[in-house]
Each structure stands twice: as C-alpha cells, then as structure tokens.
C-alpha cells in the first residue's frame, strides 16, 4: 500500500460533540487509521501545541477542524494548522457556519463578561475581576488568549477546502468525508474546492414527508412545543416551521424521523444568500390564510408576527456566516 497520509484533528470553540462523533464511528475509525497517521489530536491523544508548531509547513495532509473561532488562541491554532496542512476541512456546523455557539453573536464580550463575572447570582466577585489577556502576578506575567467580541467561522480566519456540516456530522456524512480523504490518499480526483459534504438539494428532496405537501398556505404558525406533531405529514403543512427547504440535505433527516422539524444544522443550500432572510421571505409569503383584501392591516400581519425570535429560529446554526452576522449598534458616534 501507498505511504500513509497524515491527519490532524483540532477542537476549537465547540461542545466536543464533533470529536465524540468521530469516536462514535466505531469500525470506520480503523478505515481512517488504515490510510492515515493521526499526527495531532489533542483531545484524544497525547499531543501538545509545541509538537504542532514544530512540524514543517505543508507536512500534514488533512486537518479536521471543529468548532468556531472565538478566542485569539483558536485563531492562532487555525493559522498554524493551515500553514502545516494541505487540505483544511471545516468539520461540523460550528466551524462551517458558526453553530450553536455562534448565537453568542447576539451579544458581545462586554456583556458576556459582565453577566458571567458579575451579574449572575452565584458569582462572588467583589473586586470585579475579569479575564485579562495578561496580568502580573509576583513579578511574572501570565497571559490568557483574547476573548473576541464576535464568534467567527473557520473560513473567516483561514482558507477552507471542504466543509463537513452537521451538529454533529452524521456517521454517514463522516463516512463520505473519509471517502474524500481516501481519494486524496490515493491521489484520485477530489470534489471542487469549497465543496460541502452534503446534498446539493435541500432536505425536502430526501424527506419522507415531502409527499404530503399540498401547495396550501399555512394559516397560522404553530410552535413545536404547542402540539404533538403528526408523525407523517410535512411539518410546514401542519404550520410548524421547518428549515428543511432551506437546508442542505444529506443528514438523513434524523430530526424529522424523531418528529422534530429541521433546524438547519447542515447549513444553507448553495444558492442562498442568507438562510434567515430567505426563510423570512418564504414564510412571509405563505403564512396567513390569504384573502388579505378583507382583513384589517393588523389582523393581516398577525400570523407573521407570531413568528418569534427570527434569529434563534432561522439562524440557529448559521448566525456567524449570515449576511449580518452579529448584532450591531446604531448611532453616529459609535
């Protein structure tokens, strides 16, 4: 067999689920180990950052990078890995689009520190101490990474070759990613740069419930916790907002099968400009019973006003990669 390729796996701003997902692959893990030597995987194997720094540029074939970039250390890791590797893979929704941690972009460092280090009832911090990037203790300087204002996706920091979406990626998706890695190892053709290991079509295409669509309007929006959803009918048909039409397929519809609407962890399909604003456009077009000529303006708008928390609903996994990817402040003098 050819010379084995080398691979690194890195954990940045994420819950750790992606690493678990890799470990969850069971026998398939051996397929990876067959073709690749893992040269860096701090969470599972005994590597230190210095080992990484010591490697030569371009010496790692493939990096699986999971998690968002939230601190200066994570950004540095990303840059080092980028330099050391040939193929950079954003692994998991966080690193690809921002993921759940990306929702922190509704806030900023100041607010997060204030709440965490002062406001919470269980915090006792009379001196108002907050994390500093450096501080002097007994004549020594201790440093901490900088905590950014804004959560970033991996591709906002370094170039990314492939995306493996999912929160976490399903084993099927990981298997496909392994396929790409194997192809790389054998020197075979690779997908175009920037490709995502997901379906080019939206989830509805592979959803079992799609056949129940009728082409009717959604008279009113029902929030998932308000009803027990019919397990066979399309969620949208039931008035339950589903991100399936906006979200790349490939996940196998695990949520749908568990009778929960899609929340979008496989990220937007390729033609979309912005998953949330697109969803507003679609839902704003089909929500409400129609016959607006005969309604008062307030009455007519009521069904859409019923859609609470657009950011949380429509950008659940994608906020940092949205067109407007964090909250902003109005005001001339800012």
């Amino acid at each position, binding site marked *: 067999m050819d010379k084995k390729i080398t691979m690194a796996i890195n954990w940045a701003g994420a819950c750790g689920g992606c690493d678990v997902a890799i470990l969850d692959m069971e026998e398939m893990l051996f397929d990876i180990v067959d073709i690749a030597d893992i040269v860096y995987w701090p969470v599972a194997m005994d590597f230190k950052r210095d080992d990484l720094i010591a490697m030569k540029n371009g010496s790692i074939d493939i990096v699986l990078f999971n998690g968002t970039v939230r601190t200066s250390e994570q950004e540095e890791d990303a840059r080092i890995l980028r330099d050391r590797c040939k193929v950079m893979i954003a692994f998991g929704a966080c690193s690809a689009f921002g993921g759940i941690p990306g929702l922190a972009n509704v806030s*900023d460092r100041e607010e997060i520190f204030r709440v965490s280090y002062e406001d919470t009832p269980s915090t006792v911090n009379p001196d108002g101490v907050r994390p500093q990037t450096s501080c002097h203790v007994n004549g020594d300087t201790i440093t901490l990474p900088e905590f950014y204002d*804004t959560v970033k996706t991996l591709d906002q920091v370094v170039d990314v070759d492939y995306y493996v979406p999912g929160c976490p990626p399903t084993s099927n998706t990981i298997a496909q990613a392994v396929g790409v890695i194997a192809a790389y190892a054998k020197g075979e053709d690779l997908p175009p740069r920037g490709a995502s290991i997901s379906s080019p079509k939206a989830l509805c295409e592979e959803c079992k419930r799609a056949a129940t669509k009728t082409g009717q309007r959604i008279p009113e929006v029902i929030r998932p916790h308000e009803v027990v959803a019919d397990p066979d009918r399309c969620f949208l048909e039931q008035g339950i907002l589903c991100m399936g039409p906006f979200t790349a397929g490939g996940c196998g519809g695990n949520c749908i099968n568990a009778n929960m609407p899609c929340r979008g962890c496989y990220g937007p399909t390729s033609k979309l400009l*912005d998953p949330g604003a*697109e969803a507003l456009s679609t839902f704003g077009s089909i929500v409400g019973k129609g016959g607006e000529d005969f309604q008062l303006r307030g009455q007519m708008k009521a069904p859409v006003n019923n*859609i609470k928390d657009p950011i949380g609903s429509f950008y659940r996994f994608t906020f940092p990669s949205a067109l407007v990817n964090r*909250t902003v402040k109005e005001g*001339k003098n800012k």
Partner: protein
Amino acid sequence: MAEPKIGVWICNCKGRISGSLDTAHLTQEAAKLPNVVFVKETDILCSQGEMENLRQEIGESGADRVLFAGCSPRTSLRFPEEFITATLQKTGVNRAMYEVANIREQCAWLHEPGPETTAKALDEIAMAHARLRLDRESLPDVLISDKALVIGGGPAGLAAAKDLAGVGKEVDIVEKGTYLGGRLCQISLLFQSENWAGKCVSMCVGPVQASGVVMNPLIGVHTQSRISHIEKEDGNFLATIQCAPKYVDEDKCTACGECARVCPEYALSSYDEGLFSRKAIDKDFVRAVPDVYNIMDSFCTKCGECEKICPTQAIDLSAKLSIIQDTYGAVFLGTGFDAATVHNRPELGYASPDVVTGMEFERLLEHGVKRPSDGETPEHIVFVLCAGSRATRDKEGQGVPHCSKTCCGITMKQAMRVAQGMMETEVTIIYYYDIRTYERTFESLYDTVQKMGIEFVKGNIDAITASEEGGLAVSLNQLDDQTESSGGEHVFEDGKLLLNADMIVLASAQLPQKDPDNLITQLQLRTDEAGFPIENQPRIFRPTESLVDRVYVIGAASGPKVVQQAVEQGHAAAMNVLPYFLKGKKEMGKFASRIDPDYCVSCRICETVCPHGAIKFTTEGMVCDPAFCQACGFCAAACPTHAASLVNFSDQQILDQVDVAFKGVKNGDPKILALLCYWCSYAAADMASINGLKALTNFRSIRIRCSSSVNTALIMEMFKQGVDGILVGGCPPQGCHHINGNYLTDKRTALMHNLMEQLGLSTTRLRFDYIGVSNYQLFVDTIADMDKKLRDLGPNPAGRDLNR
C-alpha cells in the same frame, strides 16, 4: 455566450433634459462602460427621423442590445415601453434586449439642475447598463389552440360560442343540464334591456339563441356533461369531457313524446327548481334545445318501456358514457349562479314549503301560483328583499356581503305579475333599508308597482315561522324611524311588527354556482370571499378575464347579472380572445419565471403563491408554464432554494444595480434605495416631477416587477452592501396587479422588522408603503422623511465589516 454589444442613445429632449444635467458628460462616460460599442446623444429620440437613424445606427454598430437614457418607460406619453418594443421589432433587436435609464422624470425634472443631478443620471445609466448586460432574449412564441371550451351553456356561454364560431373557430360547449339556455329558459318574462322598459319572453328568445348554436357545425354541444379533468399544458388547456350516455339518437328522435308517455318513473329536474316533476325520459320543456328527449340517469330504472314504444327505434338503453379529450386555447367559465344562502338561515323559514326563492317563484308564475303545501291560491304573498344579500353591519356572517343587484328589479316584476293576474291576492314587499331598482327598466317597474298600491314595509326579518292560524308569520324588527308601511296599514309597535302571509318569496342572493368538479382549483383561479373568481387587475384592461390568462369568467359566474349583461359579457370575452385565436400564438414578454430542476425540491411553495396559476406540480417536478406566467416574481421571492427565478429580473441583475447605484451620492448623505413596483409606485415617482414636485437627489430607484418580487434576502444583501435605507413601494390596497403582492410585502416587512430589531438595526431603514400612481406627494414626502431620519441615525452599521 458571446460578449454583449451595447448601443447607447442618450436623449437630451431638446433641452428638457439637458437643461438640468450635462448630457455631454453622460455621453462621454457612457462610452467607458464595458461592452459599449456605440454612444450617441440625440435631440428628440422619439421623433420619426431619430427612429430612422436608430435603425441604421443599430445596423451599422452591430449592437445587439440597446440602452436608452431619456424619459420614463412607464409614463412617457411618447416613448413608453410598448413603443420601444414595437420599434425594436423593426430593427432586428430582440424585444427584450433593451433597458431605459429614466433620466428625465426621475432625474432632470425631479431635481434642481447641477452636478448632483448629472451624477445621479450617470448612476442611472450604469444601473440600466448593469441590467442590460445580463438581459436575455425573450422566449419563443407559444402556439395557442384556436379552439375554445365553454363551460356552461347559459346565455353568456352561448353568446361567446356564437361569436367565435362566427369567425370560423371551433367551440365545445359543456352543459351539465339537459338543454341550452340555462336560467334564461326558467324566467318566462325577461327584461329586454337595461335602457328600455320592454319585456321579452324566453319562450321566444331562448330557442332562437340556442338553435343558432346547435345548428352551427363548428360548435360541439355536450349536454348532461361535465369536465372531469382540466389542466394547463404548454400554454393551452387540456380538458377531459365526460358526456352522458346517448340513450336517445338525435338523428332518429322526432320528439314525439311517446317514450315519456309510457315511462313509469318520475324525475325532478333543475328546470322547475324541483317543484314539478317530469318523466325519467322527457324534455324539460317543450321548446328545449336540443330538441331530443333525454334520460335522467338517476331516476331511470332501465325498465325498457320507452325503448319498446319508440316509433323510430331511437332509444338504446345500453348506451355508455363517452369521453372527449381535447386541447383548447381559451376557457369560458359561464357556470351561472346558485341561490343557496337561504338554506342555512333558519330564521328565513325556507324549511316551510310555502317559503320559496325568487327562482322558484318564477316557475310558480309559469305553472300558476298555488301554495306548494296545499295547492290553494294564496291570499297574501309577502316578498322579502335582501334574503341573504347585504349581510353587513348587524348581519355580518349571515349571508353574503354583496348586493345581488338583480333581485329588487325581479321582485318588482314578480309583484306586478301577481297584482295584475291574481286579483284576490294581496302583496307586500319587505325591504331592508332601501330599494335598489337602478337604471330605467327596474325603476319604471318600481314606479308602476308603487302606483298599483302594493304595500312596502321597511324592516329587518327577525323570523319567519308557522303562524297559529295555519299560515306563515313574519316578525320584523324596525330598522330606523320609519314605523309605518307605505299604505299605513301596518305599524311597528315597540320596534316590532308581525305580518301574516300564506306564501313568502325570498329574494335570495346570487352566489357562484356549486363547483362539484373543482374547476376553480383545477384552473388555479383565485376567488373573492363569496367564491366569485377574481378578475385581472386593473379590471378595465382585460374585462371578464380572470387572473389566469385566457380563462374568462362570464355571466353570473363572475357576479350577479341580469340576462342581458351576461350576454354582453359573453360577447366581450370572445372579442378578448380573438387576437390569440387569429394569430394562433402568444408572443412572450420580456420577463418569465423559470424553475431550475437542479435545485427545486418540489416544495410547492411557488405554486402556493403564484396568483396566475402558472405553476403546476407534477410527479416529474414543478413546471412553470411561461405562457401563463405574468412575471410577478412571487415565486422567486418565496422559493426557499432559489430554484425559481425571473428571466431578465434576476437576483444578479438587481444586486449589480445596487452595486453601481450610489457612486454619485456624497459620502455622509444617506443612500436611499426605492424599490418601486412596476405599475403603481414607479409611476408615482414619475408623476412627482410631472406635477412639478422636487425631491432629494440621494435616492435611486429600481423598477421591480411587483412589490413582492424581491426576496427579503436581497434586501439584507443590499444593507450589507451599504445601502442606508430601503423603501419598497407597492400598489394601494385592493390595487395589486397580482392580487396580494402588496400585502405579502407588508407582511414580510413586518417580519423583517422583527429580525432587524433583534439585530440592532433600526427599522427606520426599511419601509414599505402603499404608493399608488396618484400618491406622488406621499412618495416625495416619504423620501424626505427617510432622509431626515437616516441622517439622524447615521450610516448603516451593518454595511461595514462586521467581524470585530
């Protein structure tokens, strides 16, 4: 694709444009734009001489697309888009391959002369250029069948059929009943004309109208038939007609009636409103056309008596139903009206046999008015107007809100006939607020009836019940300060009045006919609340045509009508379709929706929103039929995958325009983008300067297909590009050309505001307004108001680099 070759003609309007801005500078700068092969400044572009030159210059320069900078393509009275397309046709440039930079109405005339106005004109040229570069040729013509399908053989449908056959076109008429003529045949005494108080008898005109149709070899008449399936296909309508078995051979039947004499089974037909019976084999009335005996299947036991007796062996009881399938270029929906509101209004007492509808009373007048319950001559007949109509105010929900328009007049006629022919019978007419006998015929009848001394009572029906004396009792509530009947014999006491009657005639509302074959759904028509199909907007341009191209709704199917009006509509609709039938094709416009199967997931959302029924779901995927598409862009704005998009109004074309729109706006001035709907709001912006108003120079407008044609994500992208404020203008309420584009945008804007609030982006930056053509002052004021507020706010924070 070959590189575009753009020719630019800049009109100075003989000083009317160049007086306010530097057209020479525009000419110089336009030459620098990519792909421009020819630039010229002209004096009066719309003049015949310049048009001649244009033709020659296009030929010589090799331009394959044309940019005009000058007057508004929407409101110019000399160089509007209709004129431009006609002109291009002669030059060999495809009719879609042009764009206009409106540097007159929305620039030179709207702003003070000076460099800022020139800068805006230059931006407008760059925007038109951005659109033009990506324009594509219009789709090829679509072949249209020149055969028509008329659904409903009433007076409206017959009129349309006769006209089309008159110019040599084939027509199929599908009638569910046994004869042609519809309700006309049930009403013995017809109003001859709105403007002539003469009468006409249906016994005479019915057969004349119907025979003309039956005798015409181009018209296929299918009675006792229904449309079992109809769908749009390649610009046409594919229909399946299911015809009742031909038990009686038309060629052999002499209408002698032997069969009906021996038939042991009685049947109820709609002709007599179920009040009188016929035989299972019979003619509904002696003058019915076609002049053939027919069998009502649901009453016939196939005993064979008729088959045996028929002297000409015309009857074959083993006949089977037949199916016809054909392709039609137009559909005339003339399915008539229904009078059902009285059924679910218990207080109107319709459950009693002696309470009848106006249509039923027509039949009683014909057969001799007797009380249905006991066959006695009624001594007191009470007519109740507005029975189920005008259910507004205190009556909301108890019927239909509209006035059925014909019933006051019909009631006067019926009351008159009773008063003239039944000397012993007393007549009372109960009316609700007022009597609406419009125009000459109705009003003269009203006048006659009043002079005859017929009693009128103003009141609101509380209940119609069986009275203690065995007849009927009408209890009325007083409506206003009128307490006495016209003759003074009935007086309200404490707001109540009790009248006795032995027969009651309800002027029941005219409603759309029931639709057992779901034609409305199959044809993808939109209806109003009462269920009448909605007509194309604005109504005055394509009267009788529904929102679906070449589906004409005629007669009472489109709303209450008297016979003559129904006939008029049939003729009008036939005329509307003629251009298609004579050319045999439909020329496709510049814009049309297209669905990309590589991205479409058949979510059917486009089908849901399409107001013109242009999109259908098939097992092979969604299909948009461009011959039905009116390019409103709803599908593109609603499609969750961007599989649906508009040709020549693509997302890229919109964003490319935004990219170059604000080069001439000074730093620090708010950049305001007005997305103005094609017909109303864009015209309002033109009308501002036409009416002498001035506006600030820092807004740019994009003429969008409908206020609802722009996806919210594009708006977000525009903010990201650095636009400070966006105004979306749509037609005024009830004025949208696509029914509800304005409302959809209003809703989407509300939703977008919720998101903007969460994002910390001021909602002042996005505004939706209903801006009709005459609301030009509102337009100018809105721009000024936005400018002021945006100055206070400062630059758009989302337009900067957001990665802190």
